[in-house]
């Protein structure tokens, strides 16, 4: 099958995408246990906890939202929790934007459903595959759906066994996103050598993280790094 005449969409690609994400599975289950424990503690039913994994499917925002979870809700509280989710998940706007140059020719009916369940792991694996010259849309679809299903599955033992991981901090599970992102960043840097945007983004993000509350530093740093790359014309470019 072909999504367009320029970007392939193959079953082999789907399988490759899923395989690329296998290394994330243990981390997802650990994080799932940490969030499951919190969900159980905050009075979510097993069904609600699974539903949240399935339709929100963004671990960091789920964790922050569960921290402020309550027994009684008003519309204001619902709005507040949605606002927090928006702030923590703002990075998805940028991840989506970064996929456009690759996936532009792919039909919307294929791209948007895959983007709907995009996670950091799937994005990281796909963008690395693309940075290494791969173009099969199946890799994005496969990695996204695979990790989406993984995250839902992780909710099952997570909710029931979560009590065993009462202190995720002790195992550095609060740093899991640092570890997975660093592990993905290294090979991309090795290949692209984009040290200038890296430095600009990192410095701005660190500064903003001390100046502004919440998760604004991710968007601020990332945009600064991208702007630096856009306006710093490399030698030989028009």
């Amino acid at each position, binding site marked *: 099958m072909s999504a367009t005449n320029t970007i392939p969409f193959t079953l082999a690609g789907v399988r490759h995408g899923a395989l690329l994400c296998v290394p994330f599975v243990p981390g997802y289950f650990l994080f799932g246990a940490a969030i499951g424990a919190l969900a159980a503690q905050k009075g979510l039913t097993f069904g609600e906890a699974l539903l949240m994994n399935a339709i929100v499917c963004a671990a960091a925002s789920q964790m922050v939202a569960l921290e402020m979870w309550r027994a009684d809700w008003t519309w204001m509280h619902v709005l507040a929790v949605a606002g927090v989710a928006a702030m923590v998940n703002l990075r998805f706007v940028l991840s989506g934007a*970064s996929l456009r140059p690759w996936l532009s020719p792919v039909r919307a009916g294929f791209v948007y459903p895959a983007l709907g369940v995009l996670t950091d792991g799937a994005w990281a694996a796909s963008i690395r595959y693309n940075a290494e010259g791969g173009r099969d849309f199946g890799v994005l679809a496969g990695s996204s759906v695979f990790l989406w299903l993984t995250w839902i599955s992780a909710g099952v033992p997570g909710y029931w066994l979560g009590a065993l991981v009462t202190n995720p901090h002790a195992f*550095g599970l609060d740093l899991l996103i640092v*570890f997975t992102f660093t*592990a993905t960043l290294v090979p991309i840097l090795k290949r692209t050598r984009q040290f200038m*945007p890296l430095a600009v983004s990192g410095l701005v993000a660190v500064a903003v993280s001390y100046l502004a509350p919440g998760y604004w530093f991710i968007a601020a*740093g*990332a945009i600064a790094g991208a702007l630096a790359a856009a306006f710093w014309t490399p030698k030989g470019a028009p």
Partner: protein
Amino acid sequence: MSGELHNGHLYAIAAMAVVTLLLRIGGYWIIGRVPLTARLRRGLEALPVAIFAASVLPLAIKGGPAGWIAGPVVAATMYLSGKEILALAAGIAAASFVRGMGF
């Protein structure tokens, strides 16, 4: 606006889901509606590295000694081995060790 909601849990989960979905498709959608100049393309190409750096650095610094040590351990393991699973295990081991020492 201040009345108590029946099924508040479900409204909250649904609201989070809708907002997150809009963000997931929004960036991709917007970039398709502006002309892709050479400059914009260079910016987009740098975006992945920029997002990684902007997330990793502050979170590692704020993670305390465990973050300062485990972050570089992950980077070094990944650089030398090229295996994510190994890098992840090294990171968790290093962080557990540092935190276990009481830092």
